[in-house]
């Protein structure tokens, strides 16, 4: 890891990290920021909060920093709520995808031949399949929950996107493990009597943390995009819950009269995806000597 520190000077990487930090603050503290400014009239649910006093489509500025949407809801707090949804879905799905992907990828190398054959064929099959299509099918079988916490409401989306996102991780891990397996330090450890489990967990997987971290950033961007796509189509996150995708969908209906309403969710979504890609590219350049 000779160039380990180099990515810290990469302006694109820094831009990405900066934007993601802002996004995280918005997602976590969004509710308190808003109530400090607007003082919601006893609305316990931040996600559906709307100020009956505020009119629809208020101009940006004043109490409502980015204006209000077609129902008179504060756009900034809707964006914050959408950030919370996107980051929650992105992180949970990525954790599941990494877990399943690493297990399948390692088994693809170390399991008996017939098991690894089946696993890798299955992975290839899943990998080749358009993810939205499978997600659509899974969501079709799981009507969204109307009650419960945020996670419960997001469950169909999380399940659908988890099922579609592990194969790419499995493929990557399999390829990496297959080459690492024959490196001298692993053969050496094996010769001195280390078990396969010990080899994998202590020698091989630690080598992969960097590249997996980099790929995770890019995968999370993909997941956030997919979640927005599903919500845009009206089968993802259900109203009144806010998602950037559904915000884009409702704003486009007033495109002719209020084009500004569309700018914010599009901007924040694009910036998030681009930032995650910048950070992922920066990390990959630092950890993967082959990448340019």
């Amino acid at each position, binding site marked *: 890891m000779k160039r380990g520190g180099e990515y810290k000077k990469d302006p694109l990487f820094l831009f990405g990290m900066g934007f993601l930090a802002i996004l995280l603050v918005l997602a976590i503290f969004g509710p308190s920021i808003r109530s400090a400014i607007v003082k919601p009239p006893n609305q316990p649910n931040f996600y559906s909060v709307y100020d009956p006093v505020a009119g629809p489509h208020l101009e940006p500025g004043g109490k409502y920093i980015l204006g209000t949407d077609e129902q008179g809801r504060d756009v900034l707090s809707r964006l914050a709520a959408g950030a919370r949804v996107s980051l929650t879905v992105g992180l949970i799905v990525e954790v599941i995808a990494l877990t399943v992907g690493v297990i399948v990828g390692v088994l693809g190398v170390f399991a008996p031949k017939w098991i690894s054959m089946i696993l890798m064929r299955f992975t290839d*099959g899943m990998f*080749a*399949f*358009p*993810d*939205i*299509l*499978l997600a*659509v*099918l*899974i*969501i*079709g*079988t799981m*009507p969204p929950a109307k009650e419960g916490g945020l996670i419960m409401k997001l469950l169909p989306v999380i399940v659908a996107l988890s099922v579609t996102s592990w194969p790419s991780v499995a493929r990557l891990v399999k390829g990496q493990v297959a080459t690492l397996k024959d490196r001298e330090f692993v053969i050496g450890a094996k010769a001195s009597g280390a078990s396969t489990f010990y080899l994998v967990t202590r020698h091989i997987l630690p080598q992969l943390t960097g590249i997996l971290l980099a790929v995770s950033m890019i995968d999370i*961007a993909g997941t956030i*995009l997919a979640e*927005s*796509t599903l919500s*845009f*189509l*009206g*089968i993802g996150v259900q109203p009144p819950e806010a998602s950037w*995708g559904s915000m*884009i*969908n409702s*704003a*486009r209906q007033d*495109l*002719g009269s209020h*084009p500004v309403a*569309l700018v914010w969710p*599009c901007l924040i*979504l*694009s910036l998030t*995806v*681009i930032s995650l*890609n910048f950070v992922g590219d920066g990390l990959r350049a630092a950890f993967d000597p082959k990448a340019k």
Partner: protein
Amino acid sequence: MRLVKAILLRLLFGVFSLLFISFVTFVAGEFSPGDPATILAGEKASLETVQQIRHNIGLDRPWPERYARYVGHAVQGDFGVSYYSTHEPVRDILKRTTPMTMKLASQAIVLAAAIGIFFGTIAAVYQRKIADKAILTITTLGVTTPNFVLAPLLVYIFCSRLDVLPLTWATTLVAPEFYYFILPVTILAARPAALITRLTRASMIDTLDQEFIRTATAKGVPRGRLLFRHALRNAILPVITTIGTSFGFLLTGSFVLERYFLMPGLGSTVIEAIQQIDMPVVQAGVLVTGAMFIFLNLIVDILLPILDPRIRESQI
């Protein structure tokens, strides 16, 4: 002989993929909310009627038998009837909606391939010059901008501001059909065009670096002929694979655009079906889209070794 064997193996894998996706859609149907017999019988039906229907459509049989029946019917193009009040046969719904989606996706892929191969070649020829950098920057935007962000942007420019293109599909079209396809096809093509540009560029740079190009240059082959007859013919092969996979993603990408432009295609029908928990339509839609996807990749995989002797040699 090896080529025949490879093609047969590939066909076998295609059949397995089809069985896999049919099984997945079947399982999805099993787990979907709502009992088909009750829905088909209608709200006021007696218990006996429901039982009778359940027996008639074979719901009282064990699942392997039902799966076999499901596949058997699907092969004949019978996907049952819609749960929606009209009880329209799903086959008719597919017949009505699939051509629109195919039209969108195939026009988009042709556009994307044309743009991608052209600009990819230019970027490779002017490598590291301004043209190359500009093209690369635009492709980065093209890859990261989702089509439902690009759509309102273009709609705002061309429909609201300039007012030169029709906004959404309507039952009675006021302009020739072609005009209604311009925006959705362009937006749909954006991402694959960016991907194909990048790939063509990388592949072209590799090819231009090889010795036979140097030989041809030394021999005095004119530049245009060198690029398009010698280099591009070699560089295009990996691009063809991408065109194949991109097409599948265009089919799902058209879900978004059909919905945006209110076009009555397969995508918008499936999405509506999900919202109405109309499982037979969802199953059939996914099955048909998946089958088209598998079929296309099959064609590409069979085409490649025929086009490229190097791949033919390396086939086991």
